[in-house]
């Protein structure tokens, strides 16, 4: 039988949209310039009214969910956004932004560089899916089962069996545990947050606890955000601290940071 030939290159018969469409943002053109909007609405609400009457977390929720949050949901999102506002100066993301600062990188790049270096952002989606799958199960039983399957590596932050949970440099994180308790007590806290709190309680004798992106995943899942929005929302939550630390070092001398000298730099390579 003869070998089938590869098809000749040709555009597939596909019907492309005539215009970009969006449910999110409506711009009414000014009567004198069709490229300029003189009224802007977000999911139907006039943006100026949102500016005057609602908060930033409310408007972010509206942008992504299509409806304004109720007061309890707003409070939960706002408190999460403050709790996670800064990954901290020891985080990879902030250290990347600081390296941009002393390296005199264009200030417009500090934030993208930091966000591209943000630890565990990608895993937020997996953590949200994990919590949505498990939230009706017995958290203690799940903890025992997963731990029995595979103990998390003591020196690694994550636990593949339970994305969003693990250890902070070998220990359960006590500060995150306290924040999680504060958030779980709020009226808008839902099944994911309460389940995860009980899950970490069951794991605490083994020194396993919350990771920051797990806390974000639990709250975002309870607020109804889809898992695929998790990584981006986690970046939004963390970005103010990344920007602040990068700007603190903008235009500082390179000697403002420690330098690992050659006596502390080991090279272990052999040419092929």
């Amino acid at each position: 039988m003869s070998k089938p030939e590869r098809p000749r290159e040709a555009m597939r018969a596909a019907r492309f949209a005539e215009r970009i469409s969006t449910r999110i943002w409506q711009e009414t053109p000014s009567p004198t310039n069709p490229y300029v909007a003189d009224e802007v609405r977000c999911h139907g609400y006039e943006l100026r009214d949102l500016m005057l009457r609602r908060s930033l977390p409310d408007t972010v929720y509206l942008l992504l969910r299509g409806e304004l949050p109720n007061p309890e949901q707003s409070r939960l999102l706002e408190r999460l956004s403050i709790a996670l506002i800064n990954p901290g100066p020891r985080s990879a993301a902030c250290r990347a932004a600081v390296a941009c600062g002393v390296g005199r990188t264009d200030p417009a790049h500090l934030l993208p560089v930091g966000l591209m270096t943000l630890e565990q952002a990608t895993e937020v989606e997996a953590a949200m899916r994990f919590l949505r799958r498990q939230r009706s199960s017995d958290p203690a039983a799940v903890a025992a089962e997963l731990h029995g399957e595979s103990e998390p590596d003591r020196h690694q932050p994550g636990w593949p069996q339970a994305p969003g949970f693990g250890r902070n440099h070998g220990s359960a994180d006590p500060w995150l545990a306290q924040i999680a308790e504060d958030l779980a007590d709020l009226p808008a806290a839902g099944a994911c947050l309460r389940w995860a709190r009980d899950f970490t309680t069951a794991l605490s004798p083994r020194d396993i606890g919350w990771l920051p992106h797990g806390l974000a995943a639990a709250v975002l899942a309870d607020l109804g955000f889809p898992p695929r929005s998790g990584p981006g929302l986690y970046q939004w939550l963390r970005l103010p601290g990344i920007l602040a630390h990068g700007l603190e070092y903008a235009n500082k001398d390179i000697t403002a940071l420690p330098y690992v000298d050659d006596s502390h730099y080991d090279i272990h390579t052999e040419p092929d």
Partner: protein
Amino acid sequence: MTSTPNPTDTAYWDRLRGRIESRTGGWRVGEAVYSHGYSLLGELVGELSWVELFALYATGRRQPRPVCRWLEAFFLCMSWPDPRIWCNQIGALGGSVGTSPVAGTCAGILASDGSLYGPRTLIDAALFLRQALAQRERGTTIDALLRQARPGGKGKPRIVGFARPLASGDARVDALERVRQDLGLPRGPHLQLAFAVEQTLLEKYQEGMNVAGYVAAFLSDHGFQPREIYQVSTLCVAAGVLASHRDQASRPQGRFLPLRCEDIAYTGKGPREVPE
């Protein structure tokens, strides 16, 4: 009574609605991918190296093969797999926390786009040399040129392209000079001037030319405009960043320069209550 404003003339933008005008090329399905007047797949693939194509795309002009061989040597000189260099450290940090190699490498490339090191510094170095060459041709001395420069530390003139942030001397200049000679490429007027400026700086301040000054001079001699020098250097740190990312990504997470809380010196305000 307010008058009705006149409609804005938007013909300039209206003409472009729904159209793309390209000066680089494009894909005609079933026909060819056109690139700068060539068929990419029919004429350039298998004929050009990647660096030759990149130089074409960065400048819009085919560059002579020896110049592109030299460019490749320049890219190698900028590819240090050392995570103590700021852009590489960003790659290493990303690798250590599990970001993708694309994210880590892009972050490092983006970090190099600034005023201390990296591609953008080549613009100022090229502008200085072009202006200096014009002045020299009108009879200005090297000493006078240096006196015009901004003063730096210890009275040294601060000129982009001369002196380095971390170390004195620059072995990359020697390496690229060797490649230039091996390729039979001459020292043009910008490069001759750069070495003359360096000679005076060495005598007075023990500072030499750095790779930015050398590269800006060499490429200026080969017809590159300052912005084209910047563009062709866009990815020059990429390989070193990728190596730094890969090194840490191949290890368990969190091993790159871990920090205790006490490793951060807090110099801010003392503890205080949040006001109501």
